[in-house]
């Protein structure tokens, strides 16, 4: 295995080549290379590079998706190995589309990018009620709650969800980040969210800032 070039894993993810990403990862695992090294030194930096290109309009949603698919192909191989180690994710995120809104594309993109950024994702779906969110926060004890909305008319649901976290005494324990087409920084400030991002790649940077993890 002396010829194994782990940069190939980085480039396979950047290029969205899932087969190559899985093959290199398998080869690396067979060569007893620490899966944590693969994740932190190659896979997460690759997704960071894709996110940076996305934010710079050098790649677009399709390229983001195929890179995420390549990341997942590699993760499938190392996840069982990571379970046996005391490896902490960058943070745990409960993610949802708010009540009254069935849209999931934006939420899924953000979840994918956050996972690529080393976060553990608990996706509780679309049209999520404040009750369901509060239950999920109590159950999963995330560091971050990420809320998405596409419809202007469902923006008030975001406020209601934050209010519910306050009401149940859960708000102090989590950071809340929000996003979606009608969402702005002003709106985030207005409802007391901790952060807002206007794109999926920026959401990773924001999440890292919120939990105090370096990129």
């Amino acid at each position, binding site marked *: 295995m002396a010829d194994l070039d782990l940069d190939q894993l980085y480039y396979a993810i950047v290029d969205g080549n899932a087969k190559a990403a899985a093959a290199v990862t398998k080869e690396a695992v067979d060569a007893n290379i620490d899966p944590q090294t693969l994740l932190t030194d190659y896979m997460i930096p690759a997704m960071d590079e894709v996110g940076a290109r996305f934010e710079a309009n050098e790649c677009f*949603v399709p390229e983001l*998706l195929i890179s995420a698919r390549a990341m997942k192909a590699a993760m499938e191989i190392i996840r069982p190995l990571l379970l046996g180690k005391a490896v902490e994710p960058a943070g745990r995120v409960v993610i949802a589309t708010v009540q009254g809104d*069935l*849209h999931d594309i*934006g939420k899924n993109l953000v979840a994918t990018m956050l996972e690529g950024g080393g976060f553990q994702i608990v996706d509780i779906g679309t049209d999520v009620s404040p009750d369901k969110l509060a239950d999920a926060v109590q159950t999963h004890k995330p560091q971050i709650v990420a809320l998405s909305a*596409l*419809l202007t*008319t469902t923006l008030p649901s975001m406020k209601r969800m934050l209010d519910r976290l306050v009401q149940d005494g859960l708000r102090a324990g989590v950071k809340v980040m929000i996003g979606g*087409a009608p969402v702005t920084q002003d709106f985030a400030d207005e409802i007391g969210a901790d952060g807002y991002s206007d*794109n999926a790649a920026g959401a990773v940077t924001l999440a890292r800032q919120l939990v105090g993890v370096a990129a």
Partner: protein
Amino acid sequence: MNPRERYTAVMHYQPRDRSPIMDFGFWDETLPIWQEQCYPAGVDPDLFFGMDPQWRMCGCIMGLWPPFPGLQLVDEGETEIVQQADGVIVQRGKFLGSIPRHLRHTLVDRDSWNAFYKPRLRADDPLRLPSGPAWEMQLAEWTRPDRDYPLFIEAGSLYGVARNWFGLERISEIMYDDRPLFEEIVETLADVVITVLEYVLGAGVRPEAASMWEDMAYSGGPLMSPKLFKQILVPHYKRITATLNKYGVDIVFLDCDGNIDLLAPLWLEAGVNTMFPIEVGKWKADPIEFRRRYGKEMRLMGGFDKHILMQGKDAIAREIERLAPLVEEGGYIPTPDHRVPPDVKFEDYLFYVKEAKRVWGKGLDNLKPTGVIGG
């Protein structure tokens, strides 16, 4: 001037009496909420607000034929799971005006394309190209010399419908996993469009514009890279616009929500020269900036930020005045940049309409009255 003459004059920068005053419709919830604010129940809003007539459409079947049978699969109370005519299984709200959530797609790869979709996109299917007395009557209406309304011909979609059939994630993968399939789908869609256009325009119909739809952008920009768009889609847009131009149809209108900054110049290059609805959004699109950037070759429709309708009369009046020089220049028909949401107060929308008629409509007496039922 009648609405047809006025539309043609505006879009060709010719002298006209005034701008058309049009709307973009309303969210399902808006009119019921306005009824609590004195909007009369059961009244057509176009009649009540005294809008100029919208264009009417001509053409024949351009989509899947035969369609998939529309079926309700599960009744979930406030939501239901249905198979749409395009084969997609969706969950949708029965009561809210929400966009359906795609659950499962019949089109996933080349096999499903060949089995279920390609046979429904035969350009030469005789059912697409009708004949007989009913068709002759339709043609007679569309070609009537004294027709006084603008007529648009449907000119299809090269990405939007395929994205709906596949879903965003799968079509994005297909672009890389099976590029020839993506190219074949785009070419097939363009072939159907061109066949139908030739059939209708060849029969002597001369619409004022052609209408395309894509909805292939979101707040962050396009849903595919401009590079691939230029390589794969632009050549087929050019085939379509060349067909339209051959019959004298020189206004090609494209409906695409979202941030279209990176795609607009490529559409213009392909001969698609009218952008709609210029959704302002948080990316702050501005029809005045579009005109500055692309000149008079790019026509515009829409571009009045619906959020300003929520900010009260002073803000509404300021925006109407700000857009007035562009309206005066021509090649631009202002409307709200999407359907009017229920957050807008009825009295503020009424003010918007009256002020638009005063400024953009020059207060002429050929404007229909506002707030007079049946006026």
